[in-house]
């Protein structure tokens, strides 16, 4: 193992999430072959790479949807490897999964309420709801509609809002740009920036490398279950290799 190519320096921050030598396998197929990454307090970290490179598996392993084969995951120093998904939310981690994971048979309001499933503070929930409506006013108009009737962009907004309803300190986002029109993507990424500025750390998985690296403080490039390259977002964006492979230039 030669290890990933490291481009540029990283601004040091308090570590929030640490992943060491994470391995994941689906039956006989190995999806991750030992991934290490870290995310600091208040940081936006992007994972980019092609379909099937292992981005989603990484997120799933971190959030407990998958049991890793090997490796260690710590959140604020606490070992969370192999913990069940529903026990991680109280630790301040929320995951907006691939394909948005909206409950299409529930109303928008119910989806949001489910985001706050573990919370009992009605007032806090209400104020968080208001905050979401501030980010995405359209959701307020659709509150009573079935989530299945929303457009793709609205569903993505709902997914992000719902993840925020648990007041996470770390938000895992899987392809928020998937299937969305450019203007909407821009809007969503703008709001992600706002969310980050309010103190939420974000681990972002994106295919659209341009968008992701523009937003991220730091980025990892995944290739067939391994980290091929790491570096600050802007540095990666400028690198020739990334440009060639992922930006089609």
């Amino acid at each position, binding site marked *: 193992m030669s290890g990933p190519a490291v481009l540029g320096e990283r601004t040091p921050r308090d570590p929030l999430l640490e992943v060491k030598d994470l391995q994941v396998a689906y039956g006989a197929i190995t999806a991750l072959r030992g991934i290490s990454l870290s995310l600091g307090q208040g940081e936006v970290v992007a994972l980019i790479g092609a379909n099937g490179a292992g981005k989603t598996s990484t997120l799933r392993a971190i959030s*407990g*949807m998958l049991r890793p084969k090997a490796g260690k995951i710590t959140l604020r120093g606490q070992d969370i490897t192999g913990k069940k998904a*529903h026990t991680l939310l109280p630790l301040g981690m929320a*995951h907006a999964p691939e394909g948005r*994971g909206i*409950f299409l*048979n*529930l109303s928008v309001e119910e989806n949001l*309420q489910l985001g706050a499933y573990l919370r009992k503070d009605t007032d806090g929930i209400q104020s968080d709801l208001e905050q979401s409506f501030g980010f995405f006013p359209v959701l307020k108009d659709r509150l009573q509609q079935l989530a299945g009737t929303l457009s793709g962009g609205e569903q993505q907004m709902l997914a992000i809002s719902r993840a925020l309803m*648990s007041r996470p300190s770390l938000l895992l986002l899987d392809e928020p740009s998937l299937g969305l029109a450019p203007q909407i993507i821009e809007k969503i990424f703008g709001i992600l920036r706002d969310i980050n500025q309010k103190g939420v750390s974000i681990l972002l998985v994106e295919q659209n490398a341009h968008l992701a690296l523009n937003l991220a403080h730091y980025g990892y490039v995944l290739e067939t279950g391994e980290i091929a390259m790491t570096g600050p977002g802007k540095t990666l964006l400028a690198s020739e290799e990334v440009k060639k492979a992922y930006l089609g230039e």
Partner: protein
Amino acid sequence: MADFIQHLINGLAAGTIYALVALGYTMVYGVLKLINFAHGDVMMVGVYIAYATAKQLGRGAQSSLLGVMLIFLVAMGGCALIGFLIERFAYRPLREKPRLTALITAIGISFALSYGFQLDIGFLPGAAPRAFPEIIRPTEWLVIGDRDVVLWNWQVISVLIAVGLMVSLQYLVFKTRFGRAMRAVSYDHRTAALMGIPVDRIIALTFMLGSALAAGAGILYAIKDTAVQPLMGLYVGLKAFVAAVIGGIGHVPGAVVGGLLLGLVEEFVVGYTASTWRDAVAFGFLIIVLLVRPEGLFGRITAEKV
């Protein structure tokens, strides 16, 4: 005309029971996508628990309001416990396995319960049917003509209880935090876990609820038909399953409508045409419904993504 009204009453009374049992079926199917073939047998066990409780209470106490409530509570609680045990030890270990394996397990449990209760060893009741105590003293509520049409108190009461249970269930599923969690688990249990929903607990609770409902339905059934016997769960379970499928399995009001429809169809077929064709008609009706609307009357087809 009198005949017709009487048939209508009979059919609705029978349909109510199907509907209630179908509700349990549909709920379990909703969260687990498992045809719980043991559901009818769990119902049978519930009726026996009620029977034993009533015997314990004795003749006077069993038909007092408190006594009846106690009987229902004990039976439903007992069944909830049985449901919990079945789910925990027989179904949960198989949740990620092919669905068929859980189905076979369900059949195994169904066999064990329905044949086990035919033994006359220990506390087991033996094969002979027993008269179910009159925990609701039958009185006539409505008599037309020279007893041309008779409506009994328990018919009304069981419809009321059934409606009550259905409404509360509907409330539970659609208006409460638990119900939201249940629907979320039903739709996608992986994502539900990401919301902090304890999926295992929700499924266990749903199972217990379904089993308790079965017990409640079973008691009403026993009041209606005045007897208990170990094989009673088999065909009621099957019919209730048919009702659930007709309504669109996984759909709460669908199960109710399916149950009532099945009860009425059977009643009128037996009453007005060939009485020996009851079962064939029930299944024929089912097949026609499915061929016209493959997803059941209220079900939705989820198209597979390519």
